[in-house]
């Protein structure tokens, strides 16, 4: 099977609510499970999806259910690739304080971006900072970090 044989290639325009994004997460995760991406990869994608959706709903769209979230997902035999865009003003991902610093360790938020970076193989933002692009390769594929534990 080659990279060009897509398992799933789909776009969604969602209302900015937990219920809406949950449907997409379920469909994506079921597709990965059905195509035997492995427990560790499915866990990594699940966690990163949840964190990215929470950020889009809360920080991007400020819990406004009238706003939208756009999702474009491509799953091939070798990788999971997704872009999630909210309607917010965006943020500077390099300006997010490191939650592992002793001064931030007792803060009750701010760990989502760190977790996404730890579990995904590629994490990129657009220049405005309102779109995250994440890639996770199937274990053993070129570019996969999943041979090692998340760090």
């Amino acid at each position, binding site marked *: 099977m080659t990279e060009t044989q897509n398992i799933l290639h789909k776009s969604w325009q969602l209302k900015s609510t937990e219920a809406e994004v949950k449907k997409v997460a379920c469909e994506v995760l079921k597709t990965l499970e059905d195509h035997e991406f492995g427990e560790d990869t499915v866990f990594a994608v699940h*966690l990163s999806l949840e*964190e990215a959706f*929470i950020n889009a709903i809360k920080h991007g769209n400020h819990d406004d259910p009238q706003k939208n979230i756009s999702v474009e997902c491509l799953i091939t035999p070798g990788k999971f690739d997704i872009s999630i865009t909210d309607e917010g003003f965006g943020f500077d991902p390099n300006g997010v304080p490191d939650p592992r610093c002793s001064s931030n360790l*007792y803060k*009750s938020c701010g760990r989502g971006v760190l977790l996404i970076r730890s579990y995904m193989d590629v994490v990129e933002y657009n220049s405005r900072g309102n779109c995250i692009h994440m890639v996770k390769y199937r274990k053993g594929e070129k570019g996969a970090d999943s041979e090692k534990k998340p760090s």
Partner: protein
Amino acid sequence: MDKINPNLSLEFRGPVVIATLTDEKILDEDQLQGLEGSFLPLIEQTPQIQLIIDFSNVKFLTSSVLGLLIRISKKVHETEGTLRLCSISPKILDVFRITRLDKIFEILSDVDDAMVGLKK
């Protein structure tokens, strides 16, 4: 064992409170609010609480749960209590390690280990 919330069971072993999270996945806002609404009053009403949170059922959580645990920990320390976490699966433990929260929480292998050294 008392089920004070659909997502939480409580067991009292003498002065020690063992709170077992009953859901496999903790990710919804409703679940989090329910847990916070159960834990915080329990801690406020039990000065110097000795609280063990048992994660044996939990297979998935998000960073929002870590935030809740920090708020619980702060409340426990305000009331001069003790908080321990136990039975955390290897995948969830990785989440604690990545965020370095394994350095600030006492994490034990199971409930029996977590009971060691607590007042009985």
